[in-house]
């Protein structure tokens, strides 16, 4: 029932979008006569048929990417939470680390990769670190906001019990930050897929990113395959987002948005 209620609109959205896409693609090709029309926006049916034609490969590579993304995501999310907790513990730590955390986000993988590799000297590990690096920031910021915006009287209650700092975190700040954490995770999860794909471009043998790049490089005859990989990537993003939403419902069911409406409007 719940699934039906949520899934149907999504399906309609996806279907609507695909129809629009097909229409635009047709118009681009036959009305506007745009150069490289099919590279700009290929026919959906062509892409989908490629998707099925190479379903096996795409599935395999998609799974590889998803696995990499999951590892990077877990690492990044953990790092983000840790950083947020540290910064919320002490204003000084925040002032010390924050500008640098922001600055660190400006280092592209191209500059980062040699350093990371130079430090850990293991390809697999450095890839994981890099994909974690891509995902930690949204988690950290959202978590920090959650930790910070705890209701004052709820804090005073803890204070009145002279609760130890860890208890304040464990029993109050962390649960109160869970909604924020999840919006961070929902941003980070698809981002982890992006991260995994980027990391795959650094000499990996497998993954959606690898096929994506090669198809681009080998030219327009592979347009449909390239777009298929995009669809797979997008699908992985949707799946990871959906997974996070599901987990949120299970882990933090107390939130107002999840309360049964009880006939209310």
């Amino acid at each position, binding site marked *: 029932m719940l699934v039906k209620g949520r899934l149907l*609109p*999504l399906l*309609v959205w996806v279907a609507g979008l695909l129809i629009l896409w097909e229409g635009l693609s047709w118009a681009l090709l036959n009305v506007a006569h745009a150069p490289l029309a099919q*590279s*700009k926006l290929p026919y959906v049916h062509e892409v989908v048929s490629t998707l099925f034609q190479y379903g096996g490969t795409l599935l395999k590579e998609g799974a590889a990417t998803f696995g990499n993304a999951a590892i990077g995501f877990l690492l990044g999310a953990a790092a983000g939470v840790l950083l947020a907790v540290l910064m919320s*513990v002490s204003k*000084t730590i925040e*002032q*010390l680390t924050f*500008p*640098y955390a*922001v*600055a660190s*986000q*400006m*280092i*592209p993988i*191209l*500059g980062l990769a*040699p*350093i990371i590799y*130079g*430090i850990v000297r293991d390809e697999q590990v450095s890839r994981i670190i890099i994909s974690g690096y891509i995902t930690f920031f949204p988690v950290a*910021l*959202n978590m920090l*906001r959650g930790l*910070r*915006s*705890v*209701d004052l009287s709820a804090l*005073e209650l803890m*204070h009145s019990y*002279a609760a130890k*700092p860890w208890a304040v975190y464990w029993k109050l700040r962390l649960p109160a930050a869970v909604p924020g954490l999840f*919006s961070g995770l*929902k941003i980070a*999860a*698809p*981002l982890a897929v*992006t991260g995994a*794909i*980027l990391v795959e471009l650094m000499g990996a043998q497998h993954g959606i*990113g690898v096929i*994506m*790049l090669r198809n*681009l490089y080998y030219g327009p005859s592979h347009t449909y395959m390239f777009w298929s*990989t*995009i669809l797979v*990537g*997008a699908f*992985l*993003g*949707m799946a*990871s*987002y959906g997974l996070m939403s599901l987990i949120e419902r299970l882990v933090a069911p107390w939130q*107002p*948005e999840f*309360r049964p409406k009880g006939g*209310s*409007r």
Partner: protein
Amino acid sequence: MEGNTASEVSFVSPHGQEGGTRPTAGAEAKPAPASAPASSNKPRRRSRTAPVLRILLPVLAGVLFLALWELQVFHKIFDLKKYQLPLPSAIWEAMGDNMSLLLSYTGYTLSEAVLGMLAGSLLGFIIALVATAWPRWGGGSLTLVAALNAVPIVALAPIMNLWFGDGLGSRIAIVTATTMAAMAINAYKGMAAIDPLALDLMHSYAAPKSAVFRHLRIKSSLPYVFTALKINATASMIGAIVGEFFFSSRGLGYLLSNSIKVAKMPLGWSCIVLAAIAGVVFYLVVERLEKVFIRWHPSRRA
């Protein structure tokens, strides 16, 4: 910074901000009993010293960091080579040699980032509005932007290049695409996670949807929106830079990738340094705006 068991006490006042009410117990420096009569001017004194520390501390840490870096301490610890991580002095020199070029490229990249970020955040916000106003049918759009978020820049770049050419436009489009999701997801959360009674109040006035959004939903989503803006401020810079890797003939990203590929690491790193400075400034501007816009937030009281 009076003697104060910060660890036990620091959790009461979540933010040592200026403004708001002062005398909540906790992390704030407690007036020593002897100074009780003079204590009323205590807060003022602290708020004057705080900003100085706020700037001084990270700067000091930065200087220390730079010194360790220059003295190759990191290189020794991690067994790094100068061609993996050039020294600050070399970066500084490269920066000096190419200053005007670097500055104009910084401006170029920053404008891509800012424009794209504004467009992406606006679109994301609109999506959140739609998803909140019509949850059943609008909710799907959130999942779709999340999907967009999973398409890497490597793939976006050629598409956007085809659509918008190799100029400013294609990077703005890339940045727009990469910043939309964070705003949509966060703003949606902010607009949905509302005290049910506050909503009931609006319903009792039969306030139209637009008014509910204007007076309640948008206001209470602001902390979430600003978090998204902060995420996007950084994401947009890196998005513009990486976007420039592939098709641009200008900008920090172009210069960076070129320099690193021809082993001019110091020049490459001066691009990174400028990008970092621009990114941090952009971030700080957003943070400043946040302070102006949400003075009332619980985290800013006490």
